[in-house]
């Protein structure tokens, strides 16, 4: 192997490819695909021979490189319609340029004065302790904390307790809250009242599912005088 490679220094296949391009002093807009593919595959081979875990993405890019190489080897057809065909390398070049820009942006971020690394703020109380008022202000809260908390609870629970929470269920909760609010206000409503003017299927379906859920929870009672008659809904508990 003609070149030394430091392991674990590449953030991904694009990073490795950029390194090879720079090392060979290649014009990124005109990549000699055979040379780069060979070096790239050599590198992967080294990783394999060292029994290192190779992220799947490295293999995907290897396949892409081989594919581009094979397309470049195909004889150019006489057909004039193929003239407009894009260079098979174009997509890869675009991806590399984008990645290069973000990589540079990451370095720029890191070169800024970073709080608690280069610059520090006051951490002592700024006023006499007696002057401080214990007012409670809400910090901005992140929904991520909430999910994380729920996930931790679920992790501790028995597997059988774990029902998957999905988007549908949460929309249902919204609808349940709305229905309970309206029933509290109006004492009783008909199914038609709840549907209102809206005719989209999702809305009707959620309204219906919300009512089923509420009946299951025994929060509401539903009455129907006759088949296909008006469904009247009441709060189960006043």
């Amino acid at each position, binding site marked *: 192997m003609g070149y030394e490679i430091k392991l674990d220094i590449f953030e991904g296949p694009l990073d490795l490819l950029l390194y090879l391009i720079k090392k060979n002093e290649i014009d990124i807009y005109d990549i000699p695909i055979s040379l780069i593919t060979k070096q790239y595959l050599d590198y992967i081979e080294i990783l394999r021979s060292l029994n290192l875990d190779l992220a799947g993405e490295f293999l995907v890019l290897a396949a892409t490189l081989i594919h581009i190489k094979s397309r470049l080897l195909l004889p150019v057809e006489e057909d004039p319609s193929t003239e407009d065909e894009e260079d098979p390398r174009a997509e890869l070049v675009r991806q590399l340029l984008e990645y290069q820009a973000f990589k540079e942006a990451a370095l720029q971020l890191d070169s800024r004065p970073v709080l608690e690394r280069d610059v520090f703020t006051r951490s002592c109380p700024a006023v006499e302790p007696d*002057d401080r008022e214990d007012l409670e202000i809400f*910090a901005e809260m*992140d*929904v991520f904390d909430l999910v994380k908390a*729920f996930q931790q609870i679920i992790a501790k629970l028995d597997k059988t307790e774990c029902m998957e929470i999905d988007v549908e269920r949460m929309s249902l909760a919204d609808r349940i809250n709305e229905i*309970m609010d309206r029933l509290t206000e109006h004492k009783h409503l008909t199914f038609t009242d709840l549907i209102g003017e809206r005719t989209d299927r999702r809305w009707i379906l959620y309204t219906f599912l919300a009512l089923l859920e509420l009946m299951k929870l*025994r929060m509401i009672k539903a009455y129907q005088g006759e088949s296909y008659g008006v469904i009247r809904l009441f709060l189960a*508990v006043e």
Partner: protein
Amino acid sequence: MEEKKAIIEALVFAAEAPLSIERIAEILTGTERADINGALQELTREYEERKGGIHLQAVAGGYQFRTRSDLGVWVKKLRTAKPVGLSPAALETLAVIAYRQPVVKADIDRFRGVDTAGSLRGLLDKKLARIVGRKDVPGKPILYGTTRKFLEVFTLQDLSALPTLRELKELQD
């Protein structure tokens, strides 16, 4: 400004408690305590003469920057208390309510494995949770749900904007 004085100023400013001359001497190795003391005296005088909003004060065996005492009336308007988040217990309780609503307290307790009376009351006080109804079973237990304020505080369009557990799991490697 002399470099050592600038370093001392930065140290006093960033310290978590009044900073003693001894502690500064430990960091600025090779500097005499008398020199550190001299720099602190100079800084104290400079800030005083400047008549700005900040003073350097000797307090509790160390030095500390504080706002000028006669400006306290203004500073109070800032509400210097740090914005508080929710305690982990409250956050857990809120999470169960958000994902399982409408839900009775017994179910929240079962989920969390502890009695949630305290954190539930806190959430009701903070208007993040509310009573949405009663379950029509013996004892007529109260059903809890989240509020509009809950959506506001967590910047959610509606409840369906809450990430699902599956989505969170995808973030874990």
